[in-house]
């Protein structure tokens, strides 16, 4: 997934630490270990009624929507953009599909559930195309272009639900967020499938390189004959569709659409996951695996709070402190200081000076 930095022969440990994913993975491992220390059965998985159970599965299942959105966000950020509207898309997708199911003549049939999913995806496509239009064609800064829908989107979702929480009862629809397939929760499988799809599409074809090119230098990539406009469209549409799937998962998990609270602040979690995973907000090089690790870190943090018996109201402070620490450790300046502290004779391959982008 990621381009490995040249490993120095003879010192495998250093090569591991030099890897981009080293710190996020170490952080995740440390968090999991901490949990294991406090609850010896933490890492254990058990089979029950043909379903896998365990804290790890819980972390993956609860984290699935965030991972999904963070995947889309990674590609958007790689083009030097940002998508603030994903939380609103989650609300719109959930509202549209639940409103459809509730109003349909056969609220329980598989066909209705399928149509509801299609409606959510189409809503995602439409929102993504709109964001892409504003960013690529009109040339609005991504942060403001998506701020429009972040503000208005929740209003639209409330308009769809009429300000109510719409409850639905459709077993097929419920399966998306709460069902099991091949012993694993469906939401994990869907997320994994989209991850593999995104990874293959961007790393086994030229698309990934093109996305990075647009992020590193939009003007140069355009002059090199790259249709950067189309690339930007693609990433925003992908991000919104990912958010629509996340919206389906969230609403189907509780079999209700809550326009106010579904996906609230999920854009923040997703952006944090991307940053913790090691993708720079300045665009360019990105790592999908890192993003997934980042999202796991965020979800594990929440779980850790419960395991350690920290009162839930402290969760946010705890999360903020961890986020600040991870961000500080990853800041290029901090890394330079570390490199200097090590004071090895080997001239460390410094991170190239990061280009600053006004956010």
């Amino acid at each position, binding site marked *: 997934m990621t381009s490995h930095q040249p490993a120095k022969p003879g010192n495998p440990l250093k090569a591991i630490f030099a890897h981009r994913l080293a710190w996020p993975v170490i952080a995740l491992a440390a968090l999991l270990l901490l949990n294991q220390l406090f609850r010896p059965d933490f890492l254990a998985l058990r089979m029950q009624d043909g379903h896998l159970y365990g804290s790890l599965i819980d972390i993956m299942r609860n984290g699935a929507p965030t991972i999904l959105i963070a995947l889309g966000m990674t590609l958007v950020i790689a083009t030097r953009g*940002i998508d603030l509207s994903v939380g609103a898309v989650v609300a719109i997708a959930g509202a549209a599909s639940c409103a459809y199911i509730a109003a349909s003549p056969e609220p329980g049939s598989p066909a209705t559930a399928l149509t509801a999913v299609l409606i959510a995806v189409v809503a995602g496509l439409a929102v993504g195309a709109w964001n892409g239009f*504003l960013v690529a064609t*009109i*040339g*609005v*800064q991504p*942060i*403001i*272009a998506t*701020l*429009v*829908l*972040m*503000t*208005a*989107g*929740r*209003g*639209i979702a*409330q*308009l769809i639900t009429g*300000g109510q929480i719409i409850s639905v009862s459709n077993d097929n629809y419920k399966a998306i967020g709460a069902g099991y397939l091949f012993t694993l929760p469906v939401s994990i499988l869907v997320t994994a499938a989209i991850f593999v799809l995104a990874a293959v599409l961007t790393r086994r074809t030229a698309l990934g390189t093109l996305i990075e090119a647009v992020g590193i230098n939009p003007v140069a990539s355009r002059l090199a004959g790259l249709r950067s406009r189309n690339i930007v469209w693609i990433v925003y549409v992908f991000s919104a569709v990912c958010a629509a799937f996340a919206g389906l998962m969230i609403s189907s998990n509780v079999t209700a659409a809550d*326009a106010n609270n579904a996906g609230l602040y999920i854009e*923040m979690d997703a*952006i*944090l996951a991307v*940053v913790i995973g090691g993708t720079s*907000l*300045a665009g360019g090089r990105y790592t999908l695996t890192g993003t997934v690790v980042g999202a796991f870190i965020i979800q594990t943090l929440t779980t850790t709070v419960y395991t350690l018996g920290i009162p839930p*109201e*402290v*969760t*946010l*402070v*705890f*999360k*903020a*402190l961890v*986020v*600040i620490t991870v*961000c*500080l450790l990853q*800041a*290029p*300046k*901090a890394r330079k200081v570390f490199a200097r502290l090590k004071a090895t004779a080997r001239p460390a391959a410094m991170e190239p000076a*990061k280009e*600053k*982008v*006004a*956010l």
Partner: protein
Amino acid sequence: MPQPSTLAPRAATKTAAPRRQLRGNARYAPTLATLGLFLAMFAVGAGMYPSFLSGQVFLNLFIDNTFLIVLAVGMTFVILTGGIDLSVGAVVALSMMVAATLLQQGWNPAAVIVLVLLIGSTLGLAMGLIIHYFDIQPFIVTLAGMFLARGLCYVISLDSIPVTEGFFTGMAQAQIPLPGELFISPGVVLALAIVAAAFFVLHHTRFGRTVYAIGGNENSAMLMGLPVRTTKILVYVLSGLCSAVAGILFSFYSLSGYSLAAQGMELDAIAAVVIGGTLLTGGSGYVLGSVVGVLVLGIVQTFIAYDGTLSSWWTKIVIGALLLAFILLQRLFTRKTA
């Protein structure tokens, strides 16, 4: 020689070609458009509802939005340097919680206010230092600041705490009479004083010019020998201070502290600044524009309250649509003047 100002030099361009003058006007265009929109909305409101056209309805726009005006002032400084501060809403809530808790324990209100202002500025200072010295995007740092401040609110209390202290309730009920049976609240006076101070600082001090210079081009500002570091950190301190003041004003207004208060207020503040004509890339915009932006948001809410049949979510949709309209307008003007 008049004092150097960041406003367009009107007197100096008198002899220049008309085209040059157009450019000068184009700088004000987004702000003037906002003002025009505000007047148009007021006129439409007056046409639809006879009671709309009263001085008190206009003054209520200020009374109900004092905290948002102060927040927008702080946000304007940050956005002018090309940064952003997402923590303001959470800092407002934290200020309210701290104030309500300490007042309940019988602290002196003056001491409480001083402490709250200190907390707000310290949070801003910490974020500014991290943004500058670690070179992390303001977006991420202030996002973490938002989590931290909101989390501290939860730590203080999950329940709403009423404020019954004499000074605060006095401020909540106080009315300053104006001629014509109109009145304003003391908070409005404070908010307008802050706006006036911000206007003076931005347009008539060295600090203000540096703020614009950093937003225009940070590297150039650095090469020109301007105090980029101090200024960049100071704008976040200012924003934190403004958030704390807004928190106090909101306490006067709501007479309680609640950890979920002011949720999404950072978005309202950013929307007001953008609608007021400030470019999110920094370097261009006016603090008075942001005040008009707040008034536009306020009149949207007044409209919906007057109508009675429209549901509250229309506020969000209308604000989103306004944001869009002003962004497109900005694109139009920046292309023309570029």
